[in-house]
């Protein structure tokens, strides 16, 4: 420690911000690339539109994931429904 540390402590450690941002964006991009087909975001949009015709859900309440299980590709669609009043 030294007498300049006092001033340093005020400054945001940008390296940790960088790491956090990278971890989030890379996780997302890996999913998009590995989850392959380009139509996935569009499919998600259209499915969401159908669900919304009947139930009011938020955009973020829909999760879509493409997994490989043995020889099969599994498309997993997860919709969190709002609590019924």
């Amino acid at each position, binding site marked *: *420690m*030294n007498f*300049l*540390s006092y001033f*340093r402590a005020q400054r945001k*450690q*940008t*390296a*940790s911000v*960088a*790491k956090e*941002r*990278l*971890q989030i*964006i*890379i996780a997302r*991009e*890996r999913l998009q*690339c*590995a989850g392959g087909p380009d139509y996935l975001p569009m499919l998600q949009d259209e499915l969401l539109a159908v669900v919304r015709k009947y139930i009011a859900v938020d955009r973020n309440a829909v999760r879509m994931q493409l997994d490989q299980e043995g020889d099969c590709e599994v498309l997993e669609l997860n919709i969190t429904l709002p609590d019924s009043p």
Partner: protein
Amino acid sequence: MTRIIVVTSGKGGVGKTTTSANFAAGLANAGRRTAVIDFDVGLRSLDLIMGCERRVVYDFINVINGEATLKQALIKDKRTPGLFILPASQTRDKDALTTEGVERVLDELSQEFDYIVCDSPAGIERGAYLAMYFADEAIVVTNPEVSSVRDSDRVLGLLASKTRRAERGEPSVRERLLVTRYAPSRVGRGEMLSVEDVQEILAIELLGVIPESTTVLNASNSGMPVILEARSNAGQAYQDAVARFLGEEREHRFLTEKKGLFGWLFGGSSA
């Protein structure tokens, strides 16, 4: 059996050509017959970094098009025995590269060389794609900086899917990370991603860390790979990385900064 190495990164300016030149020189110095190919058609730079720019007569594209033989185009390095350079064309564009043409040249080189180092251009277009397509090994060059790390991750995805090994279902390309332009003092102050951070995010084996150093630019200025400067930190770091590449175990050096009295008084609180 010849091994084909691609030096790649996605992002430009991170040190691919410098790394290609130094690895090629290091491998040749270790007694391996080595050819290094510049895949950056239209924007060649390896010839300058290796100090043979005035000896270029024929290039990679000339050989692909049958306008010159491989023997005519290969430039023999003047300092390191067993090292040859195949320069890129400066006048054509990347469409001049064909998969069949590249394969033919690599096959012919394989009959004579132990290692073929492919210096990839930046980006993920044709030149970069063909530089990695036939690779057995990949050295992913990354700066401890957000856009470089993200691009490297993208390139790792391509290495796993768009290479001949991937398409044929053969054992995958061996991927190893080389962190360049590393500034331990800035890492200590929390201003730069640490090598552990980068490795954690990319999750591949670490081949080496090259410290940010003025000798690298000096070496480029004079057209001599820094690995030949046995006293410089960057040169020693490249020597270590090449030795690790060849299977030797070496401890990582230059990850922390030596501090003088001034640094101790005014520097950060890091070790």
